[in-house]
């Protein structure tokens, strides 16, 4: 989005796209060379406070070079569009490798690990290209900012926001903490696990789980073809929901009508379902099967591995009528957060609704999936990211620049 009208006099660019492309390629190869020498060790972003010191020195140097040597042809080239474009393509190609190949563990010594193709976004080639890209972006930003002209506001916001979000996002990564805290109903815990470093960390507060709840979508029934391992679509093309009175038809096979539905029941000695309390039983439905005139009535059930109750399904033709629990609609933990200083906070953790506690954001992450709706364990993720405000400032600057760009674009389009 660089404007074509230069606001300050810059040196004549000594080289164009070819040199820029070659430079980018050499940078990538140099990065690959480091990976080979370190057996794919990748780059470690410096931790606090060195990441901030690096950022200040790096940013300060860019500003100084941009202002002091703006007329040097080399500096002009370093902050020019040809290099910027080559680096954009370089980042896109490296991202493409990272976006195609699985970013996961591979056996040591394989080409994937030696070149760190399985950890592209923390690899030396990616880091070096991004670093030079930040220099390129930074130089052009300084030139467009000093002297200040309102006409360049859109450029400043977009490029400045991108520089801020990219640099702070990458440098702040060393301070990002994402911890998993398993909590059990009726118990409190401050023990958190870092999956990356496999370390145990004690949070400055404990989480007491009062109650864990799961809402499920309505259970459904289906006609299962065991020979081809597929579900046969009913005439209505809808997966029938389990409600009293629902009828589903399969052309040429038969129909099923739900006569009764018990969302929580347990089988008695004869196998007949008896209603029990909430979350204490499994789903049962009494169905009438009409197999082209041959009528029968029977119970079906989804069963439960957690309660060790086998599912009940019935044959119809060469197929089976089976019942499936609905997928989870919502799950939440009602908790009490207890600080080390004794302060207490009642909170409800739910997906998409994190809660803040002493600078930590707490997320409803998961539960015991094997137990499903009977789970009494909740997994909470505690996240701390001190660099987030800087990254968000970058995002909002990009969006503000975008609004101006959109407005300018529409105006030019009107004139076209």
């Amino acid at each position: 989005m660089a404007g074509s009208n230069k606001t300050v006099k810059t040196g004549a660019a000594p080289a164009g796209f070819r040199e820029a492309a070659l430079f980018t390629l050499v940078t990538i190869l140099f990065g690959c060379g480091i990976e080979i020498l370190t057996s794919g060790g990748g780059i470690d972003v410096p931790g606090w406070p060195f990441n901030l010191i690096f950022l200040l020195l790096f940013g300060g140097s860019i500003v100084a070079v941009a202002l002091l040597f703006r007329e040097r042809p080399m500096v002009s080239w370093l902050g020019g569009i040809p290099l910027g474009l080559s680096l954009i393509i370089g980042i896109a190609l490296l991202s493409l490798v990272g976006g195609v190949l699985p970013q996961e563990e591979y056996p040591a010594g394989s080409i994937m690990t030696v070149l760190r193709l399985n950890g592209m976004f923390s690899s030396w080639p990616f880091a070096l290209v991004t670093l030079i890209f930040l220099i390129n972006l930074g130089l052009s930003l300084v030139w467009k900012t000093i002297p200040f002209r309102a006409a360049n506001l859109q450029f400043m916001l977009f490029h400045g926001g991108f520089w801020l979000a990219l640099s702070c996002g990458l440098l702040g990564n060393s301070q990002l903490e994402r911890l998993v805290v398993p909590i059990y109903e009726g118990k409190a815990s401050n023990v958190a696990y870092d999956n990356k470093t496999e370390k145990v960390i004690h949070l400055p507060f404990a989480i007491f789980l009062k109650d864990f709840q799961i809402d499920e979508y309505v259970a459904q029934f289906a006609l299962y073809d065991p020979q081809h391992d597929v579900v046969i679509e009913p005439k209505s093309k809808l997966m029938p929901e389990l409600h009293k009175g629902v009828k589903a038809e399969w052309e040429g096979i038969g129909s099923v009508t739900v006569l009764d539905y018990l969302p929580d029941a347990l089988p008695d000695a004869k196998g007949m379902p008896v209603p029990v309390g909430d979350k204490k039983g499994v789903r049962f439905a009494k169905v009438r099967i009409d197999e082209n005139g041959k009528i029968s009535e029977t119970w079906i059930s989804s069963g439960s591995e957690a309660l060790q109750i086998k599912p009940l399904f019935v044959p119809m033709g060469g197929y089976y009528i089976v019942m499936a629990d609905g997928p989870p609609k919502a799950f939440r933990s009602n908790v009490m957060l207890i600080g080390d200083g004794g302060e207490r906070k009642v909170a409800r953790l739910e997906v998409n609704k994190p809660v803040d506690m002493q600078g930590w954001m707490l997320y409803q992450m998961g539960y015991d999936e094997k137990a499903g709706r009977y789970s009494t364990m909740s997994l909470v993720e505690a996240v701390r990211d001190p660099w987030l405000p800087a990254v968000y400032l970058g995002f909002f600057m990009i969006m503000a620049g975008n609004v101006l760009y959109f407005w300018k674009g529409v105006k030019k389009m009107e004139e076209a």
Partner: protein
Amino acid sequence: MTLVDFPAIAFAAVSCWVAGSLLQIPARSNKALGTLSWVFMIAGTGVLTWFLTSYWIALERPPLRTLGETRLWYATLIPVVGFIVEYRYKIVWLKYYCMGLAAMFLGINYMHPDVFEKALMPALQSPWFVPHVVVYLVAYVMLAASCVAGWHNVILGFRNKRSSKSESMSHYLALLGFVLLTFGLIFGALWAKEAWGHYWTWDPKETWAFISWLAYLGYLHLVARKTDSRKLQWYLGLSFFVLLVCWFGVNYLPSAQNSVHTYSG
């Protein structure tokens, strides 16, 4: 209305577009037929809008989750871009490509029917869901239109019939598409922070969204360098394929097994 009615709706929409397009031939000399042609073409899109609305009600959630559902939106919105371009800028050919693309999307949905599925996983139940997906949808629609305009311009170039009006059209569609693409990307990041704890995790879908964004960022810098517009038409024509990988191609890549975006498959 549910997917049972989809084949009839798709047939009605495509029939309207075909009838409207055919009527454009006699419409050159007959104003009344011209109006009738537009009634048909707009009716095609109207039928789809009606279906989308009633499908939304029947689903009890926005029909924006599966690939089939997003194709329905493209099929509804792409012709609208063609109509607006003709109304505002008197460029008549774009609408035919747009209706053709829309018919193709309806055809794909007919061949690979979705399952009527009301469930929306908890992570998708967020105020960000509709803005994030809709902004992306409109961006893709703009960039698809810019892609077909690009190819049209390439063909015009071969026939020595270049049109600067038509080339600036593909450019502005790409420009507006890029702006919306940026919003979609950032909305996605802000939402990811709320749902999954971090704004960027290099998930394959995120990575491809970033690559497609870079592709159009590169385009705008080529424009700033005053690159030959003929080359830019090729660029626009080809860039859309990167978006297609991001839209559904990513599901077939080796990296997709680790994606958190599997619900869209």
